[in-house]
C-alpha cells in the first residue's frame, strides 16, 4: 500500500498500486486487480483520481509513441505519454497539440478523461475535439477500439468520462501545424467586469488565445490583466533577429532542472496576510509589462510548470480549486456575485482566472466546457470556513444554471452535480462496473 494524494493535497490515502507498463497486458492487469481506477500524472486537484484503500492502476509507464504521420499530423501514442513529451518532440518539427491546459505535465489519458480545455477554447474547442480514436481496456479483459464513426456513443462517454468507462490505453490525436514556437502577445490591464467582457468579445475573432487574471480582493471594480496571443509564422519570427538568441536561451532553460518548492511549509504561504500584497504586486508588475510582446509558448501557456511542487505552497492542509462555468446571459452578474462573496468572506485566491468559452458544446457527455464564462479560483484549505464560502459560491452557480469542473472538485454536493450534468443517466450505461473512484462514489451510484 502506498500513500497517494491528488494535486490539491487535501488528503493522503493508502492505495494498492499496480504499474501498467506493457500496453498489450493492460486488460489482464485490470481483470486481475479490480475494482480500481486509472491514475496518470496526478495533476487533477480533487478526488477524481483517487480510490482510497483500493486499487490504483498507474499509467505513466505507458509512455511510448506508436506512430506519427509528418504529413497529416496524426499521432498515435500510449495514454501515459505526457503532453510536454509530445510538445517538446514535435513543435520543432512543426506540429503542436491543438489544446493544452495550464500545465503540460499531464498524461494524454488524463487530458481525454477530463476533456481539458485551454486558452483557445473559443477557437478550437476542448481536448476531446481533437481525439480521433482510442483503445479502451475494460475490467472484463476486453479491449474496445473506439472512433467517432462506429462507436460515437462510447467516445462521448469516454471523452470527459473521468476514467469510469475503462482505462484508455492508446489514443490517436490530430495535431495542428505551427511553424514557430513563438506567440505574439498583448497584455492589457482592465478595471471591472464590463471592461473584461468588452476585451474578451473584441478579441474573440482575431485572437486564438485569450485569458485573464483577476484580483479577487479588489472589490466591486475588480481589476485584472487580460492577455491574448496568436501563433507567429516562421517568417514573422525570422523577421525578428533577437528571437534566435531568445530561443537558444529558452532551449537551455528547458534542458535545465526547473526550480522546486523543496518542502511543505507549516502554514500556507497563500494566506490573508500575503494575498493582498501578492495580488497588488502581480497586478502592478503585469501592468508595467503591458503592451505588445513576443513570448515562447512554454512560459506563456504553462507558467507554473517552472516551479515544481508549487502545490506545496498551500501548506500541510492543501487547497481547494473551484472552477465554474455560467451562461453568458447571467455571466457578469454571477461572476460579480462570486467575487463579492469572496471579498466578504475574508478568504482569497491568488490563481484566479477568468475566461470566456466559445459558443460550442463539448462532445463528451460529462465534459465541462459549455458556452459562457468560466472562473477558476484556489483557496487554501482552512476547514469549515473555506467550505462555507464554497457552499455560497455553489448557490450562485446553481442559480445561474452553471456547472463545476470535476477535474478540480473535491466537495460539490450531488444536487449541483446532477443539475450541471443532465446527461448523467446516458453516461451511466457505459460505465465499467469494475471501476470506481472516490468522486464517483461521492456523486454517482458507485
Amino acid at each position, binding site marked *: 500500500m502506498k500513500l497517494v494524494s491528488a494535486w490539491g493535497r487535501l488528503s493522503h490515502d493508502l492505495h494498492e498500486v499496480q504499474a501498467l*507498463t506493457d500496453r498489450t497486458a493492460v486488460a489482464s492487469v485490470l481483470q486481475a486487480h479490480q475494482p480500481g481506477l486509472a491514475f496518470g500524472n496526478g495533476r487533477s486537484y480533487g478526488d477524481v483520481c483517487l480510490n482510497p484503500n483500493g486499487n490504483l492502476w498507474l499509467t*505513466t509507464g505507458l509512455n511510448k509513441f506508436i506512430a506519427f504521420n509528418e504529413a497529416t499530423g496524426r499521432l498515435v501514442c500510449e495514454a501515459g505519454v505526457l503532453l510536454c513529451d509530445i510538445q517538446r518532440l514535435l513543435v520543432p518539427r512543426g506540429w503542436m497539440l491543438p489544446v493544452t491546459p495550464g500545465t503540460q505535465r499531464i498524461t494524454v489519458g488524463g487530458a481525454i478523461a477530463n476533456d481539458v480545455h485551454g486558452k483557445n477554447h473559443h477557437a478550437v474547442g476542448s481536448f476531446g475535439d481533437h481525439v480521433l480514436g482510442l483503445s479502451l481496456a475494460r475490467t472484463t479483459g476486453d479491449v474496445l477500439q473506439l472512433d467517432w464513426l462506429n462507436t460515437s456513443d462510447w467516445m462521448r462517454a469516454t471523452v470527459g468520462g473521468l476514467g469510469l468507462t475503462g482505462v484508455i490505453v492508446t489514443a490517436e490525436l490530430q495535431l495542428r501545424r505551427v511553424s514557430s514556437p513563438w506567440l505574439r502577445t498583448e497584455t492589457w490591464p482592465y478595471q471591472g467586469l464590463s471592461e473584461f467582457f468588452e476585451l474578451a468579445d473584441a478579441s474573440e475573432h482575431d485572437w486564438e488565445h485569450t485569458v485573464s487574471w483577476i484580483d479577487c480582493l479588489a472589490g466591486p471594480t475588480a481589476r485584472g490583466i487580460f492577455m491574448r496571443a496568436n501563433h507567429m509564422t516562421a517568417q514573422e519570427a525570422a523577421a525578428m533577429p533577437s528571437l534566435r538568441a531568445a530561443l537558444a536561451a529558452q532551449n537551455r532553460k528547458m534542458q535545465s532542472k526547473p526550480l522546486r518548492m523543496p518542502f511543505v511549509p507549516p502554514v500556507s504561504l497563500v494566506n490573508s496576510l500575503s494575498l493582498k500584497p501578492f495580488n497588488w504586486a502581480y497586478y502592478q508588475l503585469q501592468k508595467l509589462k503591458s503592451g505588445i510582446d513576443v513570448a515562447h509558448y512554454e512560459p506563456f501557456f504553462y507558467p507554473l510548470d517552472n516551479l515544481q511542487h508549487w502545490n506545496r505552497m498551500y501548506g500541510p492542509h492543501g487547497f481547494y480549486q473551484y472552477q465554474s462555468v455560467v451562461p453568458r446571459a447571467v455571466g457578469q452578474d454571477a461572476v460579480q456575485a462570486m467575487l463579492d462573496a469572496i471579498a466578504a468572506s475574508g478568504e482569497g485566491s491568488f490563481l484566479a482566472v477568468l475566461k470566456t468559452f466559445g459558443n460550442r458544446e463539448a462532445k463528451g457527455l460529462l465534459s465541462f466546457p459549455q458556452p459562457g464564462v468560466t472562473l477558476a479560483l484556489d483557496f487554501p484549505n482552512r476547514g469549515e470556513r473555506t467550505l462555507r464560502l464554497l457552499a455560497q459560491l455553489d448557490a450562485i452557480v446553481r442559480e445561474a444554471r452553471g456547472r463545476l469542473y470535476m477535474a478540480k472538485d473535491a466537495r460539490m454536493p450531488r444536487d449541483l452535480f446532477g443539475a450541471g450534468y443532465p446527461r448523467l443517466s446516458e453516461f451511466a450505461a457505459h460505465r465499467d462496473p469494475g471501476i470506481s473512484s472516490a468522486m464517483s462514489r461521492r456523486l454517482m451510484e458507485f
Partner: protein
Amino acid sequence: MQHIVIIGATSAMAEHCARLWVQASPVRLTLVGRDEARTQCVADDLRVRSPWSPVKVQVQVLTTDFVNAAAIAHTVQTITALAPVDVVLIAHGVLSDQATCQDDVLACDAALQVNGVSPVLFAEAFAKPMVAANRGTIAIIGSVAGDRGRKTNYVYGAAKGLVSRYAQGMQHRLAHTNVKVVLIKPGPTDTPMTSDLKAKGQKMASVEQVAKDIVAGIAAGKPVVYTPGIWRVIMLVVMHLPRFVFNKLNI
C-alpha cells in the same frame, strides 16, 4: 553514423538510453530482446522520436535465447556481420527474489545464469570483432548490489559481482587498445511502480537521470559509472564496514 546495439532493449534503463541517443543525433540502432512484440513497441517509439533528418534511425529487432551460449554467439555474429558495432549496451536482467532463490536451487541457477553468465558471454562475444577492428565500447549494466554480498539479495548481487569482476578483467586486457569497457552500477532506480508517489524513506533516482548518466559515461568511456554518483560514496562505506558492524545491519 554510429551503430549502437542494445541487448535487453525492453528494460526501462536501456529504453531511456535509446531515447537519449536518437534524440541527440541519428544513429543506427539494433535492438535485441526476448519478446518480439514488446521489442517492436520500443522500436516503434524510437522511430517516432528520432528527429526529422534525411537519415532515419534504423531499428532492427532480434530475439534470442539469453541463457544459451550458442544462441548468444549466433546473435552477436549476425549483428556484427551487418555493420561494425560502435557501442553495445548490455542491459538485460531479472531482479530475482532472494527468498525464492534460497528455497529453490533451480530458481537460484536461473537467476545466476541470466544476471551473471549471460551478460559476460555477450560482452566476450562482442569483444572479439571490436578488438579486431580496434574500436568500440562495451557497456555492461552491473549493480551496486555486486559490491558486497548482503543477506537480502546476494544471489542477484553475486551475479552482478561476476559481471563486475569480468568487466574489470576485460578492462585490464584491453587497456592498451581503443576498445573501451564501461561498467555501470546503478543504485535503486525509480520504476513506474513508484513514480510520483510518496516513496517513504528511500530516495530513488529517476530512470531518466540514470539513463543520462549512462549515456554520458559511455560517451566519456569511463571504466566505472555509479549512478547517481552518490552511490560511489555509499558503497565505499558499505564495502569497508568491519564485519562485526556489518553483521548487525539489516540490509
